């Protein structure tokens, strides 16, 4: 039996400006990355071809690129998997994905006649389908946000609802920014991970809002900021514990889960870390700032 922090009493609200500055900086950088460099949309959304190929003998990325250059596709993304230089993912946006896949397989059999290959995965998506998927996905994200805002506003004060949704955007934008930075593919699975992050982040927000609401009723004589601080501190052990177990699970997925799930697990990892941060440093601080600027009388 251990306690991480005995009776934590950290003045989160008093130091809120550091939280705001930090968040402002990382969000600005993330937004710049998103708008200047742009997300690396996967073939799910652009239409195109993905081939995961395993060679029986090692091959270099340069060799593959040379081959692809001969069919005018040297700008395809070539990703090496594992350390053996045998397994690769070749991915490219293409107007005619089926033909492109055929061309790649043909050029590889011409250029590597003695190196046996196995196609582990083959995906082709017509650009038209990609567009449909994108629209559908945006709608689902929008719907998720509306429903969550509705539920939180219904269960708590609307200020908490709005603060929670701001925290959601904060987490999602930061995570997308990191994905852009490391040039991870932005696929349908990654969107699924982003929605999960939203779900997780709101989960944290609710636990904290819930505690603050309870403290608010009990500590009628204290100032609003003291109430917020007490609430935050009381749930701090829980926040750290739950984040730890969840992160352990996600790390296990990332390290041991294999190539298919790696992007998904990576997105979750980044999102859960920032989600934990935002639930401690953003949510309550927004509410506290709001209360100071536009005081609401205690009932």
């Amino acid at each position, binding site marked *: 039996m251990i306690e991480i922090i005995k009776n934590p009493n950290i003045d989160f609200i008093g130091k809120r400006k550091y939280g705001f500055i930090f968040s402002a900086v990382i969000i600005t950088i993330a937004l710049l990355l998103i708008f200047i460099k742009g997300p690396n949309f996967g073939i799910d959304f652009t239409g195109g071809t993905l081939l995961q190929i395993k060679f029986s003998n090692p091959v270099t990325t340069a060799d593959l690129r040379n081959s692809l250059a001969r069919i005018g596709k040297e700008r395809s993304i070539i990703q090496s998997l594992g350390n053996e230089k045998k397994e690769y993912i070749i991915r490219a946006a293409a107007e005619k994905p089926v033909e492109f896949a055929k061309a790649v397989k043909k050029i590889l059999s011409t250029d590597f006649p003695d190196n046996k290959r196995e*196609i582990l995965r*083959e995906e082709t*998506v017509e650009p038209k389908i990609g567009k449909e998927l994108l629209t559908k996905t945006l709608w689902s994200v929008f719907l998720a946000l509306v429903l969550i805002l509705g539920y939180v506003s219904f269960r708590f004060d609307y200020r908490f609802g709005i603060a929670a949704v701001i925290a959601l955007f904060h987490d999602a934008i930061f995570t997308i920014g990191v994905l852009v930075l490391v040039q991870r593919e932005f696929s349908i699975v990654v969107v699924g991970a982003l929605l*999960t992050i939203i*779900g997780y982040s709101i989960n944290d927000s609710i636990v904290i809002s819930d505690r603050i609401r309870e403290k608010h009723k009990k500590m009628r004589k204290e100032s609003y900021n003291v109430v917020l601080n007490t609430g935050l501190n009381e749930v701090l052990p829980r926040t750290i514990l739950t984040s730890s177990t969840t992160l352990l*699970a996600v790390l296990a997925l990332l390290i*041991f889960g294999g190539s298919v799930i790696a992007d998904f697990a990576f997105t979750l990892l980044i999102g859960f870390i920032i989600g934990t941060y935002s639930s401690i440093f953003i949510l309550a601080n927004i509410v506290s700032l709001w209360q100071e600027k536009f005081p609401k009388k205690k009932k």
Partner: protein
Amino acid sequence: MRNIGLRMGIVIFAILLGIYTIYPTIRLYTGKNLSKNEEIALSKRAIHLGLDLKGGMHLVLEIDTTNIKEMPQDLRDRAFEIIQNRIDEFGVYEPVIEKHSGGRILVQLPGVDRDRAINLIEKVAHLEFKIVVDERVPDVIEKIDRFLQGGDTLAFEEPFSSYIIGVERDMGIDVRDEDSVKALLARTEEVIPQNLHFLFGTKEVYQGREVKKLYLLKREAELTGETIRDARHQPSSGQDLQHLGSWQISLEFKREAARKFASITGKNINKRLAIVLDDIVQSAPYIQERIPHGKASITGNFTAEEARDLAIVLRAGALPAPLKIVEERTVGPSLGRDSIISGIRAVLIASALVILFMLIYYSLAGFVANIALFLNFFFLIAVLSAFSASLTMPGIAGIALTIGMAVDANVLIFERIREELKIGKTTRTAIDQGFGRAWITIFDSNVTTIIIGVILFIFGSGPIKGFALTLTIGLVANLFSAVFISKVIFNYFTYKFDIHTLRI
């Protein structure tokens, strides 16, 4: 102790029910020497592996209506039926063939040879019998060459005749010239008599080069594939030296067509009858005599597999229009196997880490949380089995995530109990109030995540659905196991052993 007996009864009943629904899944995947019938019976009540885990292909097909004026709806229905027949005859285990919105057809085939399956589905299989008009060839070629010389003022263009080479007793072209010849024929269409057209044969090797034969045929077909009653593949007959060791397809016409076939062959003795499949001439044998019994065969260098597949598509009938693959996701069997192994490994390691963490942090209470965690996992699998749901790789990720998040409920409860104990409440009151207060929070936070899960399930495509399913079921099971069951355990032990001090 308020109705502890009843609550324990509920828990035991739920566990027994879970064992009952999980049993087929365990038997299916670990049982040895299962007969085929047993397997089929079990798989109806067991978890299925998704295509990404067992390997297989997911195709979305769209009908290419470029040259068609018919109602797309009827077209789709006919195409659907034909594809279904072809796949049935091909013999795929548990295929999925569905009509989708926008006139699309979804086909999911577990564990098949990709190229062969695509060939089977995509092949239009429009079979025609056409008369070859060898005697008109010199005349038509001359017309084309004259047109090329006269029409083109530059006059440097290669004449049509220069492309033509002799292949056995036929004319042919080098495969490398195919595109130029096609373009040339398209441009000179006006001088080719309207009732005739050129078609290519299949690719073959002649004197060390890759060639295709070229035939001049009557445009109108004498008979089409719709008149076929049956098509079977069989080894080529012994006398046919050219195709020794290869396979052929023997055709049987319907009665009406058989009569027509007899009259056509009777009228065209010493001419050639070309068998044309999807505008490619398969063979063009000489008609030596009238063929009265309504039987014909397609020869060519077919392997047994090719011949079998071709017989299937001919029996199932021609597609009303070509199909286009608009989405394909194929996973090879070895990647599927790797995914299962790494998925299970990730889940086991995640569980081990979380279990250890909870034991160290909460000692005995951590043990209770771990029981709840195990039951959470157990009920999740039980519900998946009961629905005979498909487990995908993202679905496994959902399970790992459920394990990570499942202890949240117990953490919330334990932290509450600790707080209650600190302010001097008795053990039993602390447990009661800890559970009571934490319940609201747990409920609220699970509901929002379940909202996300349901949205992902409704709007998400393929693999994401699997994730949404396991996550949502996992969270619902979490409410039962982490809250209801752990409280029963706590109540039972504090009651039975009359515990007054709780180390938590």
